[in-house]
């Protein structure tokens, strides 16, 4: 364990998420605390409905907690307003989703250019095409998402996530929509880029094998953190 707070890129304290449903109040996350170090790869695992995706959403600042605090790269995430969190995401965070979330009207290249463009970066085309070449899609720059296979779409998504050189990458079931061989290659790529760029990876999955490739596992059950396991594969 690393003691130095400045080394942890994510720090969560007393996190609660409750929603009101027709059956009464539902507790999605219950008094959850954890820390993730910079450069570390962690997996959040658990059964369906255990609160994995909710936790990821809150860590990335896409959702707000009912209680508790989250520090992302030294920023108290929920002291920022929505636009402040967006700006933080723009500079420090990358995303990979289960359903890829590429914009259908944009070519592969344009999808990768998008976060740079939103950040006001100039001459983004060469950066984006280099990144696409890095993920093996140099021949596919001008294809639309619907013209790409699932694996290719996820590689575009990975290129889009890494093109901004994020400090932290959030991945939500990145292989969930892919067959196992393709999923394997996508994960390979994800870890390679992670090593190259020295980014932190936070991965939500229920694939135990995939989770074992990370440094640590956070196991959730009914919104509670029930175990933190150090991976042997390291």
């Amino acid at each position: 364990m690393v003691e130095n707070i400045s080394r942890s890129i994510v720090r969560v304290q007393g996190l609660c998420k409750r929603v009101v449903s027709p059956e009464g109040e539902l507790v999605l996350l219950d008094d959850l605390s954890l820390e993730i170090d910079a450069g570390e790869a962690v997996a959040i695992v658990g059964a369906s409905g255990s609160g994995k995706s909710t936790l990821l959403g809150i860590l990335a600042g896409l959702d707000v907690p009912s209680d508790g605090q989250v520090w992302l790269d030294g920023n108290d995430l929920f002291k920022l307003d929505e636009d402040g969190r967006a700006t933080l995401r723009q500079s420090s965070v990358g995303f990979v989703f289960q359903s890829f979330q590429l914009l259908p009207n944009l070519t592969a290249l344009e999808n990768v250019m998008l976060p740079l463009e939103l950040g006001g970066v100039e001459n983004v085309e060469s950066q984006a095409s280099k990144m696409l070449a890095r993920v093996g899609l140099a021949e596919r720059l001008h294809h639309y998402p619907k013209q790409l296979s699932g694996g290719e779409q996820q590689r575009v998504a990975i290129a889009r996530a890494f093109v901004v050189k994020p400090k932290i990458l959030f991945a939500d079931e990145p292989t969930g929509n892919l067959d196992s061989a393709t999923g394997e290659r996508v994960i390979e790529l994800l870890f390679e880029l992670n090593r190259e760029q020295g980014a932190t990876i936070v991965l939500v999955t229920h694939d135990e094998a995939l989770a074992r490739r990370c440094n640590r596992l956070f196991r959730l059950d009914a919104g509670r953190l029930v175990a933190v396991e150090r991976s042997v594969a390291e």
Partner: protein
Amino acid sequence: MAASIRMSWRMLRRDWRAGELTVLSLALVIAVGSVTSVGFFTDRVRLALENQANTLLGADLVMISDQAIADDLRVDAERFLLKSATSIEFPSMMMTAERNQLVSIKAVESPYPLRGELRISQQRFAPDRVAAGVPEAGSIWIDIQLLDLLGVNVNDVVKVGEADFKIAAILTNEPARASGQLFSLAPRVMLNLADIASTELITAASRVRHRMMLAGEITAVANFRAMIEPKLKPGQRMEGIEEARPEVRSALERARRFLGLAAMVSVLLAGVAVATSSQRFIRRHLDSCAVMRCVGGTQQQILSIFMLQMLWLGLIAGSVGCLLGFGAQFVLVGIIGSLADFALPAPSLLPVLVGLLTGLVTQFGFTLPPLLQLKNVPSLRVLRRDLGALPTRSISTYGLGFVVLSALIVWQAGDFKLGFYVLGGLIVALLLLAGVAFLLLRILGAFRAHLFVEWRFGVTNLMRRPMSSVAQVIAFGLGIMVLLLFSVIRDDLLDEWGNSLPDDAPNRFLINIQPDQVEPLSHFFSEQGLKAPTLYPMIRGRLIEIGGKVVQPESYENPRAQRLLERQFNLSWAAQMQVDNQLIMGEWWSASESEGQFSVEEGLAKTLAIETGDTLVFLIDEQRVTARVSNIRSVEWDSFRPNFFVIASPGVLESYSSSYMSGLYLPESEYLVLDKMVRQFPNITVIDIAAVMTQVRIIIERVTLAVEYVFLFTLIAGLLVMYAAIYSTLDERIRESVILRTLGAGRRRLLNGVIAEFVTLGALAGMVAATAASLLGYILAVYLFQLEYQFNGWVWLTGIIGGGAGIGLAGVLGTRKVLNYPPLLALREV
């Protein structure tokens, strides 16, 4: 901001390439195109029509004065680059050795007439020709009946005042002849203005009417009028064609309304198409928004990117629309153009501005509320798709658009009444469409157990999303309604307009018929094998009191009111109301009533503020004639039948001295009858109104053509609305059919289901649309155009069958890729 501009531009290009903006931009182009083309050409065409009508006046503008018109007016006119000519007109006696006759002398100078033409002939009823210039000094042109009244012939010499003149020609047509005091005209004698002094007829006490006729470029004429009118002295007035000829005014008015209506309906429909397609655009961009938020876009940034994107789209589509409108107006001007005998003023840039503004306002009216919602899409939607879906059809979404569109309609109408009717009609039609659609769906639903399986499937589909089905029926209904209005009802309306001027409308007026000639004249016509014309008694009187108050020209600000009170009215009496008149207020008298009553024409009542129940006093033969106004009626002035401002019930006027008049239709081949008649009844004056009628006929024909052309825009807009409606549910349909096909539904079954659904939607919409179209047609005809309206049963049949078949076909074509693609591929299209 610069980054947002760059970004929005890129997003626009990308969306365009992906076909996301096709329907939306097409709708915008049509909206702007129709507004601009109508804007471009309405003014030009209106000017052309007015110019054409001005040939009846002999000028674009006439100043009439009872004093000689000062020369500085001519100087002013020259400054405005207007042509001018003066004339003077006065009654006088004309003498031969044996007879003398009261005539109306008109002295003219070149270049009279400024508009239209003088026509003369050398022999009675021989073919006439256009006169080159005005009568030469020492010669006169005279009306045909003077030949008999005075027993003279062409080339004879007659005395006018103190001078001798040679009769050089028979005057057959004179612009402005039929205008003004139509029924009090003595036969015309036209001579050269230079000869007036030699006649020594004009003294200080003479009742002389001086005219200065002006013509020139339209805006110059208008500016001149605006400058001069406030400076008019008592006894002076300005007259344009609209003041001079109520028939022409009412034809022009209808023409303007038809055109305005067509343009407005196009804007309205294009607005609906914009609304529908922007909804789809927004729905399809929900995910993009969430992703952009995820990768660091701020709310402000995303909002400005989308707003700017809409702005570029609006400007580009608007510009294309303007170009389209500009091109279209050339065709329109071509249709109308032959009416104008002068170059039309160049189109101004104003319609471009108006068009662009209309496009942007419509677009932002319908896209702004959903755009504002777009920035609130939670970024968490990337993880959970069910989050942040837009409320599909809420008041807040369409409210702003509707308000904006309403304002546009009233503005575009340029006429509160027209705007109000169209808007009211629209709201009623929408409510009706919604209500009936909902009801019909319920009824269908109750019967669905008895339907074939595919139809049951289709109807169940409709029932499952009642709100969206009702919305679709409304969209289809609006489209079909316009098509029906476009085809059946428009033709009915235009035919009715044409019919308001039947082929046998009078082309000659006979006036000055004496009471003892009524019988012999009828007999004369029977002898000639012609139907005896209806004769109307006519009595001249001056209105001196309204509702117990003495009225004088000075009592009114309105120049028309002053003019009406200055001169004598032509009154008549009748037991029955003329068939082409319509009661507006009060009751027509019955035979049993003994109390004397008056019936007053609507326009006159408005001008002089006369109401039912008021007592009017006329001065007739120096005696006061008093009666109460029991009703107010409207008159179709463009029917050309003789009509009267004030009609009395039997028993009020009979004892005063009267003459009779009649309107008569005489085919070209029967003109010799007039010659015989004038020989037998030399005191009767024949006035040729064929020229005026031809003008009105031409206006009606040309405008009908132009309106049909403008309605093409409306037609395209109607089709666009329906296309947008089908397109807007495409994604949902693809998703559903994929599920069904995955579950094993065959192509044929799905196809039949789609057919059943769309045919049902189309037939429902057609039924509702036919009802709305008939109602709208009725309202428009009766209240706006003052035309008769016949309900047309074909509308329903056409609506239901056409709607079912058309929408069925369009639906299948629109969704065919759903059926032909492998399910997974189809899903990727979404």
